[in-house]
């Protein structure tokens, strides 16, 4: 299929994955592929990226889709026949050397890689990793998939299964230790801890790279078997900003964390800017006259008074039990990243007991570290460690209720799944009476609200609004509105 024809499927998949590709950008991409040959694969990929992806946090999703659609393109990316691979040459070299050294062959004769035992293949891999031999690593990745993955056409099995099978056969889990050991043995003197650390990082990176090669090979074979469209569909993943807090996998959590940092920085900058330029006040007469002196008394540059609106105080009260913990964490991180926008931020966490955790955030500039302290040190279990909003709110009111004043904005965080305890929703009502605003943020999809033991409606009725915050996009939207 010519490249141009592949493009429409490719762009369609980008859009389905949530990337906002406009018509102009699509046309630009079509122009781009005319001037950069697909054989120059990296440049080709970046050319497509430059025209279609305008947000760096979307790059990973783009890369996956690119792999799927273009993995079989270009001569060096054809599916290889395991018997006529580069690995063969390497293997023969090895044998020659062995023969020179020991005066005898290794039994496999001149035969190909099929004759190798898994151990022998693993040893070859180890040597390739030791030397950081890229070409060899790639060849071995392909070889390993061909031998160990056990892929058969039409089998409805996912890529992770094949990956697992391949890696297990290579004993990759112990590879790092083996490499470190071998590295130590080959150096003449004792290496320092710094050197060891650097060596470990290097080996880890090579192993990671090898895994990627294995994954890529599996994907190529799956695409060949099932077609790009079907593969893209199985691999489809949400963009970081759309990942649901409540169902994020480990890897997704990682990407969320990564996305959070630039997002908070942008948010902080945007808010600071708003503050400075927000409102143009009335003419500042004195200032205008003062400046007019440099224009010979002509008031050429009118000056205005900028009103400085009072910053609100914030109290965050968050449920940190199991399913909503991640949501609480991200919200706290976001809030503390922009804390300069508030005159004061206090935070409280609860499960069935409640504890103030403000001090952890005061003690360090490192929000991650503070969050870690919150997780490990906060005293939030009262009876059984199942969420009890009612009890937590009661205690909150008793201890801190008097601190709520007309400058305070209260944020209540959680799914309001109260395990059928008493709601004590009067507390929220009281809060609102005394505070400037009370908002509830719920990480559950709206359609789940008030089902089962969720009583968000009962609390929500006493607030200034309940907001669905399932993902970063929604959370960011809310926080921006708040300030």
């Amino acid at each position, binding site marked *: 299929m010519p490249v141009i024809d592949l493009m429409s499927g490719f762009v369609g998949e980008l859009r389905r994955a949530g990337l906002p590709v406009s018509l102009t950008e699509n046309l630009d991409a079509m122009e781009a592929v005319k001037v950069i040959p697909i054989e*120059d694969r990296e440049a080709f990929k*970046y050319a497509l990226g*430059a025209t279609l992806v305008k947000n*760096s946090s979307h*790059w990973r999703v783009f890369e996956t889709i690119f792999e799927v659609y273009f993995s079989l393109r270009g001569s060096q990316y054809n599916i290889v026949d395991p018997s006529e691979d580069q690995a063969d040459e390497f293997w023969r070299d090895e044998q020659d050397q062995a023969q020179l050294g020991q005066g005898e062959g290794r039994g496999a004769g001149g035969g190909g890689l099929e004759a190798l035992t898994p151990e022998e293949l693993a040893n070859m891999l180890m040597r390739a990793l030791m030397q950081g031999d890229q070409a060899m690593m790639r060849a071995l990745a392909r070889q390993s998939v061909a031998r160990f993955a056990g892929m058969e056409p039409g089998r409805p099995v996912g890529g992770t299964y094949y990956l697992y099978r391949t890696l297990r056969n290579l004993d990759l889990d112990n590879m790092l230790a083996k490499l470190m050991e071998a590295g130590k043995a080959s150096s003449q003197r004792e290496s320092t801890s710094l050197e060891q650390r650097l060596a470990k990082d290097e080996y880890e990176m090579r192993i990671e790279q090898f895994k990627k090669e294995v994954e890529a090979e599996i994907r190529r074979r799956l695409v060949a078997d099932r077609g790009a469209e079907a593969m893209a569909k199985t691999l489809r993943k949400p963009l970081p900003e759309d990942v649901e807090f409540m169902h994020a996998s480990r890897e997704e959590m990682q990407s969320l964390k990564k996305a959070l940092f630039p997002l908070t920085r942008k948010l902080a900058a*945007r808010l600071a*800017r708003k503050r400075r330029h927000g409102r143009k006040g009335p003419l500042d007469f004195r200032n205008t006259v003062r400046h007019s002196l440099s224009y010979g008394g002509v008031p050429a540059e009118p000056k205005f008074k900028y009103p400085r609106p009072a910053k609100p105080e914030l109290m965050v009260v968050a449920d940190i039990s199991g399913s909503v913990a991640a949501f609480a964490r991200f919200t706290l991180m976001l809030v503390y990243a922009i804390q300069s926008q508030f005159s004061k931020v206090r935070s409280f966490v609860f499960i069935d007991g409640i504890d103030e955790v403000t001090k952890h955030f005061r003690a360090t500039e490192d929000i991650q570290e503070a969050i870690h302290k919150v997780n490990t040190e906060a005293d939030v279990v009262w009876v059984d460690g199942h969420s009890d909003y009612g009890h937590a709110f009661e205690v909150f009111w008793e201890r801190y209720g008097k601190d709520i004043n007309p400058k305070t904005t209260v944020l209540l965080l959680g799914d309001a799944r109260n395990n059928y305890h008493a709601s004590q929703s009067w507390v929220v009502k009281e809060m609102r009476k005394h505070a400037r605003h009370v908002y509830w943020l719920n990480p559950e999809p709206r359609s789940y609200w008030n089902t089962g033991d969720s009583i968000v409606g009962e609390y929500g009725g006493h607030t200034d609004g309940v907001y669905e915050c399932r993902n970063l996009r929604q959370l960011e939207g809310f926080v921006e509105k708040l300030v």
Partner: protein
Amino acid sequence: MTNAFASVAQVRDGLKKINYLADDGIAGVVYLAQRLGKPVLIEGPAGTGKTQLAKSVAELTGARLIRLQCYEGLDESKALYEWNYKKQLLRIQADKTSDSWTEVHDDIFSDEFLLTRPLLEAISAPDPVVLLIDEVDRVEVETEALLLEVLSEYQVSIPELGTITAKQIPMVFLTSNNTRELSEALKRRCLYLHVDYPDMEREKEIVLAKVPDISANLADQIARIVRSIRQLDLKKAPSVSETLDWARTLILLGVDHIDAEQAKETLHVLLKYQTDIAKAAKELSVDE
């Protein structure tokens, strides 16, 4: 353009000759920008070679670099053009008696009284130029709209003088340190290039290219340590400029093989926050 590129490889090699180390992505997008005549928006952390790329491309193509440094409050009069009102006032004063108002008017709104700012300069340039709009994320949204207009039309209309249209489409680079989201419209108009920290090999080459008298061995060690440090969860990861500063410091100190002690004593050149320094020192176990 005086020197059109023939291939992506040529861009990469050309840049390398003048000591800019590009990866496939950077070289590919520069090549594409020239072929398609589109501006490039370069985004990425500070100190990763965004500004330098525009400068180096100018050098490589033998074009004149015109730089518009953005800042908060930058407006049309500083980006595009401005009437030299002082000179205009003087002109009016001088000729109070003789000329009719129309004459004076025509006169004071002529080229002679026009202060050309970078955007207009780039558009009206008769020679090949590279326009660098640096740190565009600092300007207000209104100014961004102005930029977009210029980059879409490649013409500027001055009410008193008429429309000035570009004789050639200059290569344009906009850089952003990503402190705020740029408008969708601007992004659509541009090719997008995300420049991140270089991988170890490229960083080593950058160090070798930029730090005189450094040994390959030391450059290699520096690149390795920096890579390991970047993997930590830091407030601010070291940028390429900081790597270069560190390399220069080590050279000044006469170091040619970094040991734990030297690393610890010089970490502050690489990292700006106390908490980061402590973290790195601990992680690299350069403590003991």
